[in-house]
């Protein structure tokens, strides 16, 4: 039961309850009046949805084209798949039998259009509608089978139109005027006279290859070999179309219904089965919770979900290009193992804000991008930017002894060191043209302590642009020089 407008309403029934005349949509109080001993429990909508999704995952072994039809239906587009399972009849029986074996109460039908199949599944379970006989198959079904909204269904009933056949006999213009074009389209769809593709859950991959196993497989070696041979099939298809894969997804269908998906990404279009196999091995090795084969996998599918144009390359013996390729492969391998955000390359950023001047971005994204760097240092002079920079500048303080006003000491991280050099300031104003309330101006000093350590330290904004005192000055260490 669910709550609809503060009334408890029945949202689902078991077989026994529907046998005694209870209905979905009936208020619970009503049902209790008919049958005082009725057992009611709160509906778990999110749980139902998750279960439906898992069944959808499972059914992807029959076709990649699976759509959800909430709350409790799945639409499978099996065009072109049926011959793999011995025809339409056998496929439908197999799906229904497999689901019943898992203790689901299931009804199903197969037809040329999704609406027709949906209508038949409710009232004519297990029916395979022959091509072109859709209207005949559903003519006798009650109007409910179209799953129109309650108002429309009720209106048809009141008009005395009880079956789909009766509605279908009415003029289309008449129906459109009364119920709108959408309803007419649904009707035409159910009659097999209009076509609309279903919307799959995930975008369909551009290329995919799969292998079914008569006996579920569980050993790592077999899984790996399968991936390589699937990759070979896929790479041949990619090569024929002059494309390369940027993202590949392997789906492991476990015998008990669970589906594991593992994806790898490459920095440049790839169609080398050896490389794909290696990347998957890196990824599988590095998984936090390893791929659990359970009772084994009975289907493994490899799909290229993102592809790019990639011209065939003539064998190249130039050392530079080969080196570049090897580095790209290394980056892909490290990204597969540690994650793409873990392998970075520096990118120049046109700003004078010190921490933003050099960005470390994922190296896979940055193929062949050239950036120009501008140094600040004068020839043969000291570096002006520290080699190591703290992501969050650390507070420090400078102490002066009363007896020796010239001696300055730096206190940072619980230690105090005499300062022997202090150069500056280098004033860096924040970007007031980008932010409404920019950070205060920073005055940077290069500071050396007696033990030779060199710090980049700044005094955070004393004055704002109108030379008003904003806050008391405080000192921070931003980095350390080599």
């Amino acid at each position: 039961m669910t709550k609809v407008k503060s009334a408890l309403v029945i949202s689902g029934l078991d077989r026994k309850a529907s046998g005694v005349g209870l209905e979905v949509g009936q208020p619970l109080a009503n049902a209790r009046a008919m049958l005082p001993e009725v057992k009611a429990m709160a509906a778990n909508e999110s749980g139902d949805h998750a279960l439906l999704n898992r069944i959808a995952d499972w059914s992807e072994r029959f076709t990649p084209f699976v759509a959800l039809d909430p709350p409790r239906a799945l639409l499978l587009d099996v065009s072109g798949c049926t011959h793999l399972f011995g025809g339409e009849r056998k496929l439908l029986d197999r799906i229904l039998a497999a689901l019943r074996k898992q203790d689901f109460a299931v009804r199903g039908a197969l037809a040329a259009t999704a609406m027709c199949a949906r209508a038949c599944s409710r009232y004519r379970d297990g029916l395979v509608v022959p091509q072109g006989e859709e209207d005949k198959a559903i003519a006798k079904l009650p109007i409910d089978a179209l799953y129109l909204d309650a108002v429309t269904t009720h209106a048809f009933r009141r008009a005395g139109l009880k079956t789909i056949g009766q509605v279908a006999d009415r003029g289309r213009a008449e129906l459109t005027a009364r119920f709108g074009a959408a309803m007419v389209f649904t009707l035409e769809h159910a009659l097999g006279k209009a076509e609309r593709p279903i919307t799959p859950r995930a975008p369909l991959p551009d290329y995919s290859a799969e292998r079914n196993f008569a006996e579920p497989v569980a050993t790592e070696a077999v899984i790996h070999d399968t991936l390589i041979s699937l990759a070979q099939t896929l790479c041949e298809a990619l090569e024929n179309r002059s494309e390369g894969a940027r993202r590949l997804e392997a789906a492991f269908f476990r015998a008990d219904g669970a589906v594991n998906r593992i994806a790898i990404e490459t920095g440049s279009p790839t169609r080398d089965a050896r490389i794909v196999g290696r990347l998957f091995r890196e990824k599988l090795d590095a998984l936090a919770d390893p791929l659990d084969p359970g009772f084994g996998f009975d289907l493994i599918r490899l799909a290229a979900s993102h592809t790019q144009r990639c011209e065939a390359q003539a064998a190249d013996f130039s050392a530079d290009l080969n080196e570049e390729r090897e580095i790209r492969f290394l980056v892909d391998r490290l990204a597969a193992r540690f994650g793409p955000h873990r392998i970075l390359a520096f990118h120049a950023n046109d700003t004078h804000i010190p921490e933003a001047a050099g960005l470390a971005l994922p190296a896979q994204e940055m193929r062949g991008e050239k950036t120009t760097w501008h140094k600040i240092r004068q020839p043969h002079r000291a570096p002006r930017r520290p080699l190591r920079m703290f992501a969050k500048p650390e507070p420090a303080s400078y102490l002066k002894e009363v007896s020796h006003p010239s001696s300055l000491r730096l206190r940072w991280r619980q230690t105090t060191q005499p300062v022997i050099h202090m150069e500056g300031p280098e004033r860096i104003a924040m970007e007031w043209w980008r932010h409404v309330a920019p950070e205060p101006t920073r005055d940077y000093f290069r500071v050396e302590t007696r033990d030779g350590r060199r710090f980049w330290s700044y005094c955070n904004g004393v004055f704002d642009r109108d030379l008003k005192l904003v806050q008391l000055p405080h000192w921070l260490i931003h980095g350390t020089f080599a």
Partner: protein
Amino acid sequence: MSGGSEKIAALRATLAQAGLESLVANPHIPLGFAPADTELKGGLQRGTLHEIFAASGHEASATGFAAGLAWRVAGKKKILWIRQDYSALEFGELSATGFLELGLDPSRILLLCTARADDAIKGASDALTCAALGAVVIEIPGAPKILDLVTSRRLTLACSQSNVPAFLLRFGAKPEASTAETRWVIRARASPINEEEDWGQPVFETELVRNRHGRTGQWVMEWDCETGFFGEPHRGKPAHRLAVVSAAGDRQAAAALEQSRFI
């Protein structure tokens, strides 16, 4: 050492400057600082493992020295720098502009960030199979268990197979038994007090505490940001009292003394 090897080192330096290093099969690549090059029989070889220890508090300096060595031996190739997250938090993140100011092109660095030391070693072992890399720098704070003699041997083997040099940059750790070709202990050299000028290019107090090709020693070297070579410090020469190699006779004792002082 005789003057002959010094001469060879100087000749190699000339070759290197002319970009003709590759003419010599697995050559010793000179650092540019003649006394050190003499002891190293001409410099560092590719395909070997080197260790650089930072004296406590001098991590940035050791980073600079490691970058210098890696750039010397990498030629024109890319450098993979592996660093742990902890290292970035504690000692600061590597900064692109910092490399640039040292005269090193940041575009040539690939940065691999790992959470743990064993990930860093795994990543390094994988990277060392890629002969297209110029050098691999592995930055490890502390003394993780994985970094034992076996790992060190494995890295050395990987280096020699692909002919890629590796540099283990160690922070807050004591030198232990390893198969490294050379081992350095680095601290920053305090600048001479001179009010008019800035402190100039980075100057390192280096101690070579292990050297498989010759004697150990300690030198003060300056990194030349323009040419990309190490060399004699330019400024305040009289102040550098360590700029002489220790005499051959008391080398063992001196090395032991240095090591104990560092610890």
